[in-house]
């Protein structure tokens, strides 16, 4: 399995001018995108909307067809919004890259297993069946580091399954490290940055 921070670091290292839309562990301030990002002004963490990061990313991809949009989803999050795979594939955004951080658990609520996590659900087949144009899967850092260029060269919508190590949060919510950048601030900064580039 791949360490969460390592996976985010690999994606960030190849982002160029892509917008990154992380949620849950991929957006965690201790081991997600905020810890490694190289271009925060184009980072739009999404939380608190029940698995909607991929929908937000789709909207940006449709409005900015010349720019890559990279969504970093969670397995529990995607299960809350499984239809979004079909919503995305219906529009066939060529600039849309959907990374699934599959750790098999609800990490932020204490590590309870998610439905389908015991080898029941095949995420690559789910994405392929939903109509994604290309599907990749990685379960170790070496292969992922080698394969990331091929992933980002593929025409979207692209789905990338990553088997990542669970990093379970057991600290009471009120004592957890908070983001230094609010959701509103991120929303405004990304909007302004994209407007300035147009």
């Amino acid at each position: 399995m791949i360490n969460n921070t390592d996976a985010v670091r690999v994606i960030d290292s190849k982002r160029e001018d892509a917008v990154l839309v992380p949620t849950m562990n991929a957006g965690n301030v201790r081991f997600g995108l905020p810890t490694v990002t190289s271009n925060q002004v184009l980072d739009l963490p999404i939380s608190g909307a029940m698995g909607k990061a991929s929908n937000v990313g789709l909207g940006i991809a449709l409005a900015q067809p010349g720019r890559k949009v990279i969504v970093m989803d969670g397995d529990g999050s995607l299960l809350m919004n499984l239809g979004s795979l079909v919503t995305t594939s219906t529009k066939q955004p060529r600039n849309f890259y959907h990374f699934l951080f599959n750790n098999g658990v609800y990490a932020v609520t204490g590590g309870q297993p998610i439905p389908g996590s015991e080898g029941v659900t095949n995420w690559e087949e789910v994405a392929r069946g939903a109509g994604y144009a290309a599907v990749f899967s990685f379960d170790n850092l070496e292969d992922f580091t080698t394969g990331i260029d091929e992933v980002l060269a593929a025409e979207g919508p692209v789905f990338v399954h990553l088997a990542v190590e669970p990093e379970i949060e057991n600290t009471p919510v009120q004592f957890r490290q908070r983001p230094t950048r609010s959701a509103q601030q991120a929303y405004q900064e990304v909007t302004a940055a994209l407007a300035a580039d147009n």
Partner: protein
Amino acid sequence: MTTAIPESILHPASLVNELKKNDVSHVVWLPDSETNFLYHMMMEEPTLDLVPVCREGETMAVAAGLWVGGAKPVVLIQNTGVFEAGDSIRGLCLDLNQPLVMLVGYRGWTRRGPTPDSAGRFIEHILHAWGINYYLVETDEDADRISVAFEECERLSRPVAVLIGTEFGS
């Protein structure tokens, strides 16, 4: 004795004209039984890009992304979909101060007699609870309230709802 069916008084063209007048780029929507005529007209309108979704909660999130990317979306769903989309409205539209017009089919709305449909009974209470202002459109003459909603949502950077209180006619 036959009962005369009243002539439709809200035409799809009135709504599409409002969308064009306000430079709407995308309609993020999930159809309901009342909007089929509107669907055909929107499909034929080259300035509108339709984004169909599988569940209403997706509409606010797709619209948020479109807005971030510089487009100008509206959401078109039924009031039952507003109930379904509750956490997206809270976590995206309201928490992010998203200037979004939500066109909402007012299922169960009637000016006459009781309203047996709970979808009709609850929607205004829900909008009040969230502090979302709304306008009612029932006829072609009401359609310019959609422009009022656009002006308000952009001025206040908040979501504003437009309740479509009648079925569209052809």
